[in-house]
């Protein structure tokens, strides 16, 4: 009996069950991959060349897109606050208002989404192509462990690079917010920065940066997992890239929710 011939009251639970099972198996795959990566960390045997290559590629390639995103995000946060600010005549705290939201929440989140779209998707495609052209088997046949050689440097690079890109993005976003504040609300950049430094504590900044590390690990894990589990030739690579971006985005939101609560 196939799903399509069922009467509709039976189809819904079947579909829900199938979805739950497939999500469960993906999450399980992620956990297994995580365990295998952690096991490779003791003792740490890293391929230095592969690590440097990935650091360079992932960092440099996503710098422009992260900067542009951050610039607009900063400006948008000020525009968001503008009606409230004019209503309560609270020009002197615009810097803090925009900075709080950007540094804690919106900056890390959007930068991570862009990073996932660019670096994560590319990583899935690269590993997936290696799987379908049996280059992974070739590594194993040379007695080289694919997790240690391919996955570990990629995961580390993504976590490290997203962290630094978030710092750069934060700076650019504050710049964008400052310009928007000057143009739209006529807020003096100096008073903008004053309110930012006065009212913002380190913990606000730390929250955002801790999140960026969590997001980086999430993107790295999903993109490697989906890349390594590609089946079905070249079209399979396309499907895996799509699935990996969607899974990483969902994962980022869910983790963001929990980390927002935990980090208060």
């Amino acid at each position, binding site marked *: 009996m196939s799903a399509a011939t069922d009467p509709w009251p039976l189809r819904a639970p079947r579909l829900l069950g199938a979805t739950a099972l497939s999500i469960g198996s993906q999450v399980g795959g992620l956990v297994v991959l995580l365990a295998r990566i952690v096991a490779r960390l003791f003792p740490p045997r890293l*391929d230095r*060349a592969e690590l440097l290559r990935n650091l360079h590629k992932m960092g440099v390639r996503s710098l422009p897109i992260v900067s542009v995103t951050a610039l607009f995000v900063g400006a948008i946060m000020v525009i968001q606050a503008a009606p409230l600010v004019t209503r309560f005549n609270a020009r002197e705290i615009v810097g803090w208002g925009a900075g709080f939201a950007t540094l804690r929440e919106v900056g890390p989140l959007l930068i991570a989404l862009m990073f996932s779209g660019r670096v994560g998707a590319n990583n899935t495609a*690269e590993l997936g192509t*290696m799987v379908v*052209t*049996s*280059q992974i*088997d*070739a*590594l*194993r*046949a*040379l*007695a*080289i*462990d694919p997790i240690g*050689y391919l996955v570990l440097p990629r995961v580390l690079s993504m976590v490290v690079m997203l962290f630094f890109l978030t710092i750069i993005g934060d700076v650019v976003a504050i710049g964008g917010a400052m310009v928007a504040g000057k143009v739209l609300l006529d807020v003096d950049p100096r008073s903008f920065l004053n309110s930012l430094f006065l009212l913002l504590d380190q913990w606000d900044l730390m929250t955002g940066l801790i999140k960026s590390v969590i997001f980086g690990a999430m993107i790295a894990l999903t993109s490697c997992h989906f890349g390594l589990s590609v089946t079905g030739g070249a079209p399979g690579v396309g499907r895996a890239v799509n699935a990996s971006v969607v899974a990483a985005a969902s994962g980022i939101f869910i983790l963001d929710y929990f980390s927002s609560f935990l980090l208060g």
Partner: protein
Amino acid sequence: MSIRFENVRKAFGSKVVLEDVGFEVGSGECFFIIGASGVGKSVLIKHLIGLLRPDGGSIYLDGEEVSRLTEKEFFSVRKKCAMVFQNSTLFDSMTCAENVALPLRKHKRLGAKAALKEALERLDTVHMREFANAYPPELGDGMQKRVAIARALTLDPRYVLFDEPTTSLDPVSARRVDQMIRELCDEVGVTSIVVSHDLRSIFGIADRICMLYKGHVRMLGTPEDFQTTDDPVVQQFINGRAEGPMEV
């Protein structure tokens, strides 16, 4: 010092590919596994280095049962038993020299410079030194194959598995690869297992041949045995006829 397959069985889902396969390969031999496409020749040799695991039966390498080893334990097997893949499978993000240098760096604990230097010498033995800095996709199939062979030989393996080494090569490159395989057996004493359905290679360089058919060994013998057999299936295959008793 040999390779022995005993009652090996492997199925993918409900499709049984290998039902009961067993044979022995002697030291220094150039052993061919032949058969129609999809009969499970590549599947069979991938069992030897643990890229696939059998559903039943056992495989011995130098008297050691290898089919139940873990992935980690297989690493030592793979160092003495190399494999050249059907599509060469060079890493296309690296140059030819880096491809060859990778196993040197990983297993011989050589620094990056020393590894590259030795890689160049290795490439020289397959006459590919001038292409050392080219990326694999820029090269023709025959050249890629030669680099792949150089990469497989870097750890001085005692056994080398060739998966359809001459398929998709032009006739001249194909004969050159044949010649390299033969020289490996004669001069270095390497045991080669070659999966092929290229009739010219089979009768050109094989010491012994094993023909797989429907999940079993159909015939095992020297090239002469094969040419004089009256088994109609084997006859049809080695004469390359479309009509005959062979089922697809």
